[in-house]
């Protein structure tokens, strides 16, 4: 397809518009990741490698969050890997929807994250699913990396990160990632239990490990939790416990054409 043809096709696509507005909103907060990462002690290039190659906001924030708290590299990697498991579940969903093959499959896997999966699964038409996924995925990848670089440069120039409250910014970022997932009593209860387990574990184990203890508790709860339909089933219970969370509120119809990026993020 020609470039002009592709542009015309995307222009008339509601899913592409949703994907683009999500890409702008999400890409912008790459600046907070970049600044926090260098404040946590990572170098500019380590920060960029996380955004370019790991490319999953939750896992990236987790990695630097553990390092900032004095945790070891292996604890940071483990936390980031556990938080990335949901991307594998998204991968199964997207594979079932888009059936990418060859190099497209390898590229699709790389941009399989919360936002691109949510954009695709919010559509019903297969072509729209495809457009939404790729526009959101590639758009976020480009903007997220540019803004990470900007944030890392700013972060390096700020000097003492505590003076600017950057450690407070990290707290806010994690709460902001958690918040849209708390939609019912049960996820709230899991969050409280894991928070308490973490606080109880902090004095007894090395930094970084309390997070893994909480992960173990969360995993056990998930394993034995009864009821609930799988997230990929049509009409599944929307209680925030499904791995696929829509981080930006919009209705997947033409009415969302005018949703403005930056004003609709982080909804409970």
């Amino acid at each position, binding site marked *: 397809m020609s470039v002009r043809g592709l542009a015309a096709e995307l222009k008339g696509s509601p899913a592409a518009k949703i994907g683009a507005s999500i890409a702008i909103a999400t890409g912008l907060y790459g600046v*907070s990741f970049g600044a926090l990462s260098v404040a946590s*002690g990572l170098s500019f290039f*380590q920060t960029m*490698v996380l955004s370019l*190659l790991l*490319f999953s906001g*939750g896992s990236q924030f987790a990695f630097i*969050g*553990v390092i900032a*708290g004095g945790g*070891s*590299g292996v604890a*940071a*990697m483990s936390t*980031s*890997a556990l*938080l990335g498991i949901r991307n*594998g*579940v*998204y*991968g*199964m969903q997207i594979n*079932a929807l888009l059936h990418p093959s060859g190099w497209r*499959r390898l590229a699709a896997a790389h941009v*399989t994250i919360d936002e691109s999966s949510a954009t695709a699964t919010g559509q019903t038409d297969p072509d729209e699913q495809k457009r939404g996924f790729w526009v959101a995925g590639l758009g976020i990848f480009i903007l997220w990396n540019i803004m990470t670089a900007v944030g890392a440069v700013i972060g390096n120039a700020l000097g003492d990160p505590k003076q*600017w*409250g950057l*450690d*407070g*910014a990290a*707290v806010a*970022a*994690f*709460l*902001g990632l*958690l918040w849209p997932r708390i939609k019912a009593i049960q996820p709230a209860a*899991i*969050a409280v239990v*894991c*928070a308490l*387990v*973490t*606080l109880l574990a*902090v*004095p007894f184990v090395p*930094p970084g490990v309390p*997070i893994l203890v*909480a992960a173990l508790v*969360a*995993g056990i709860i*998930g394993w034995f939790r009864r009821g609930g339909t*799988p*997230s990929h089933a049509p009409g599944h219970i929307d209680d925030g*416990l*499904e*791995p696929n969370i829509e981080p930006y509120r919009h209705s997947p119809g033409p009415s969302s054409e005018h949703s403005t990026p930056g004003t*609709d*993020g*982080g*909804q409970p």
Partner: protein
Amino acid sequence: MNLWFWVLVAAVVGYLTKLLGYLVPAKVLANPRMSRVAGTLTIGLLASLTVVNAAASGASVVVDARIGALVAAAIALWCKAPFLVVVLAGAGAAAGLRLLGWP
């Protein structure tokens, strides 16, 4: 172990996890337990990361300006503020409380 090493391992593991989703047979897709564990893990990890970054300092639990950041962020989220505003509210609260003499 060198931090670079773990940065690269995290990147490789992260990508392989995503790719695995595309390679596993559709049969696994029908297993709701995997989806449930992924869902509870994500919530548990994010709750734990929030608490660690708000109140842990090495191997002790402390109350300092970061608690103010947590409260400010919660208020911002309650008011449906966008993510970037939430992060700025957290930073502003922590920086402001330190100006007032909090640790």
